[in-house]
């Protein structure tokens, strides 16, 4: 009889391990493909998988085989015009059309790369590999809103819904054995003695039997009086509430939208913000975004306005920092939130404002944040802001302040990596 089995419900991904092994082996190539892809991709689709191609010879597994040369006889199908003795011009060595590939192995043929796809998750995995958030220490434990229930053994008290039947009955059973043990043993002895009597009985035996029967009766009653289950036996599942570390983070995006910022520069900045956002998202459960744009005054705006609305005006960077400080005071207490900030600018600033910026940063902002990164975008030599910021970097906040110069889109990812490289702190 045939045996028909429905395997469709079996788990899929039987090859997950093998796939992982493969990715592990070609990590280097995949990483390269990923970082190239990031350079090419538009900002809105960082969040998907990617085709990775690896040179065919790298994935080839060598085996002994025949190379070209020597003498070889072979048969082909579909003869149309040839007769015995025909001489055919040798086709050019590569590929060789249809001629004679009948049994030759097809490995080693063709220069096509080995192409495969990695999933979105794997893509991000490779993208942020070896990166760590600086100062990711502040995890908010006091925030009591998030709890996780966890098993913690058994308890004598509890609500009926938590009753553990097996444990309760087990303990009742033990109690019954313990309380009735002596009586049971006595009853057993008496019963044995009773069995020892052989008919016909003498008078003495007769009376002895009666006594025994009476005692057995009493014992049985006592044994049966032991309650089947007692308050004392009840056991309850004990669950405890564990405070869940619920890491919350807020990310401040600061950008200069003054006249000197071109669309191109803004696009580059957007990429940087996006990468940072993706990265934070992988590390924190909850993430809030605050967009602050500024020219000579700063305002908090939504994402769309932040990137797309056009403003002109001068540049006063300190206005943005002041606003950020206010928002932190108001909404994001540093004891509750992990605060990250990224500032993008072309480096322009109002003369005389830079000093104020440095002061604001070192006194108000930096003490609150986990990390503050500044990127200066543009092909020009570093501007005023850069030099002043550079000094901060040498100061006491050097572990949480970083700055990098970026020229165009393709540099965003490498710069991002440099900023968040898992340090040897």
């Amino acid at each position, binding site marked *: *009889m*045939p*045996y*028909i*089995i*429905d*395997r*469709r419900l*079996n788990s899929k*991904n*039987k*090859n997950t*391990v*093998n*796939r*992982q*092994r*493969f990715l592990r*082996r070609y990590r280097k190539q995949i990483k390269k493909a990923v970082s190239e892809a990031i350079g090419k991709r538009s900002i809105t689709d960082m969040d998907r998988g990617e085709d990775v191609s690896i040179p065919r010879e790298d*994935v*080839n*597994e*060598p*085996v*002994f*085989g*025949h*190379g*070209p*040369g*020597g*003498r*070889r*006889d*072979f*048969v*082909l*199908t*579909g*003869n149309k015009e*040839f*007769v*015995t*003795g*025909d*001489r*055919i011009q*040798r086709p050019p060595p590569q590929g060789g*059309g*249809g*001629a*004679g590939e*009948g*049994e030759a192995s*097809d490995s*080693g043929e063709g220069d096509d790369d*080995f*192409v*495969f*796809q990695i999933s979105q998750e794997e893509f991000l995995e490779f993208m942020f590999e070896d990166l760590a958030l600086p100062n990711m220490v502040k995890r908010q434990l006091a925030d009591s809103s998030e709890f996780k229930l966890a098993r913690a053994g058994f308890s004598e008290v509890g609500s009926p819904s938590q009753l553990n039947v097996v444990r309760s009955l087990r303990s009742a059973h033990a109690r019954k054995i313990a309380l009735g043990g002596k009586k049971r043993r006595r009853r057993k002895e008496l019963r044995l003695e009773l069995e020892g009597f052989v008919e016909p009985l003498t008078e003495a035996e007769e009376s002895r039997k009666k006594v025994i029967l009476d005692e057995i009766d009493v014992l049985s009653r006592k044994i049966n009086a032991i309650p089947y289950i007692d308050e004392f036996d009840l056991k309850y599942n004990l669950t405890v509430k564990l405070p869940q570390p619920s890491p919350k983070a807020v990310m401040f995006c600061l950008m200069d939208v003054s006249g000197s910022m071109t669309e191109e520069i803004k696009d580059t900045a957007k990429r940087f913000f996006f990468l940072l956002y993706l990265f934070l998202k992988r590390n924190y459960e909850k993430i809030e975004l605050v967009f602050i744009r500024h020219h000579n005054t700063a305002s908090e705006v939504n994402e769309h306005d932040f990137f797309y609305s056009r403003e002109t005006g001068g540049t006063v960077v300190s206005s943005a920092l002041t606003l950020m400080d206010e928002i932190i005071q108001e909404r994001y207490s540093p004891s509750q939130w992990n605060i990250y900030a990224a500032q993008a600018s072309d480096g322009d600033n109002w003369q005389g404002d830079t000093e104020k910026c440095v002061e604001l940063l070192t006194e108000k902002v930096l003490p609150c944040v986990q990390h503050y990164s500044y990127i200066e975008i543009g092909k020009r030599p570093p501007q005023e802001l850069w030099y002043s910021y550079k000094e901060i970097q040498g100061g006491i906040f050097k572990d949480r302040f970083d700055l990098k110069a970026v020229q165009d889109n393709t540099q965003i990812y490498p710069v991002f990596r440099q900023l968040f490289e898992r340090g040897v702190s």
Partner: protein
Amino acid sequence: MSRREPISTGPDWTFELLEQYDQEIARIAKEKFKLDTYANQIEVIRSDQMMDAYASVGMPVSYNHWTYGKKFVSTEKNYSRGRMGLAYEIVINSDPCIAYLMEENSMTMQALVIAHACYGHNSFFKGNYLFRTWTDAEAIIDYLVFAKKYIADCEERHGVDAVESLLDSCHALMNYGVDRYKRPLPISAEAERARQKEREHYIQTHLNDLWRTIPDTAKQIDEPQRKTFPEDPQENILYFVEKNAPHLESWQREVVRIVRKMAQYFYPQRQTQVMNEGWATFWHYTILNEMYDEGLVNDAFMLEFLTSHTNVVAQPEYDSPYYSGINPYALGFAMMTDIRRICENPTDEDKRWFPDIAGSDWLETLHYAMKNYRDESFIEQYLSPTVIRQFRFFALEDNEYKSTIDVTAIHDDEGYRRVREVLSQQYNLSSNEPDIQVYNVNIRGDRSLTLRHYQHNDRPLNEETDEVLKHMRRLWGYDVRLESFGDNHQAKVFEA
């Protein structure tokens, strides 16, 4: 015979229908055509599971290695791009014989697959002499489970990298891990486990003696001049490594052995592609036609079946862009059908070429051919002028010393024999794979190993040779040389 009602008419299949079809097919296969099979185990799977099965070369369990991951990602990619369809079935040479059916198949396709795999391939596995001698259908699944577990344990104990690189090396030499002539002893998986420990111990002691460095004075006096070691060249390189490599640890020897066993298991399949597929195709064709004659299936069923069958046995011509060698389904099916024709309606030509079988009982003749041949000998024996004409085969000679490729024979009276001979050689594994054997080990000196390659028709080794030798060196632990001998002159020496 009275015509019966069709079993089903729609394209959808159900488990009940599968069972009914299977019953009818089994009846026809067994009673009418005397197909002797292992018990069948039909498993319905999804397409992604089919891809899983593809990646592990059709085995239901397999140890983990990146090469399977590589196959998997490339199958996945090609399939999702629509560049390839998946096979309708995969069948495993085991007892019970496991056949995978895809859930996407229509009822017709499921019936085709059942006839093809569960009765065609299955009876081939059970009947053909190569499978009978070289594989043990009963034990293979158990052995695979053992192998998977063993390798997983090794990974845990010695690290994934160590195991992976060892497997890489073994895979490189996998084709040289088979006994071509010596018969293996069938052994069950349980015995295997028990013997594995024993072997571990034995090999270590045995080896130490071979590699003894302290002179054994008493012995040495009697010992005549030592001959080469091994005394005779060894064709099974992996076996030689397993038994004699100086520094492999016992778990490494066991891993070599596992790869070797797998190679041996697949060896018959590599030698009987044309026959196996031809046989299975012939039977699904014959059985389903029989069902039609009995009225068990309707016209719509037959049309769908024939479309699919025609695709399977299509043979593009050599200058077609779709040409990728000779289609084993096409050639096998044509030859099987032709044998039947020769038996039933022989022409004068057939009587001249096949006096033994012309006019004989076709079923018996076909069974005999299935049982006692492999591709090479099957073609040599049974390829008829009719089939040669049908495929318009022509033989060519590609000689590097000539500026042209010469047509040596075509499908005409003078050419049949030559075409048949050349085609038969094309399926001869021993001339397709370079003939490389372990020739000598310098046991008294630097322990280097020498392999010898005897060139066939002066064909040199390919570019990957150096890479393979590096793997060989990793397994052997000392220098490895490969001497490649031409027909008349000593050719290249490779070293690693």
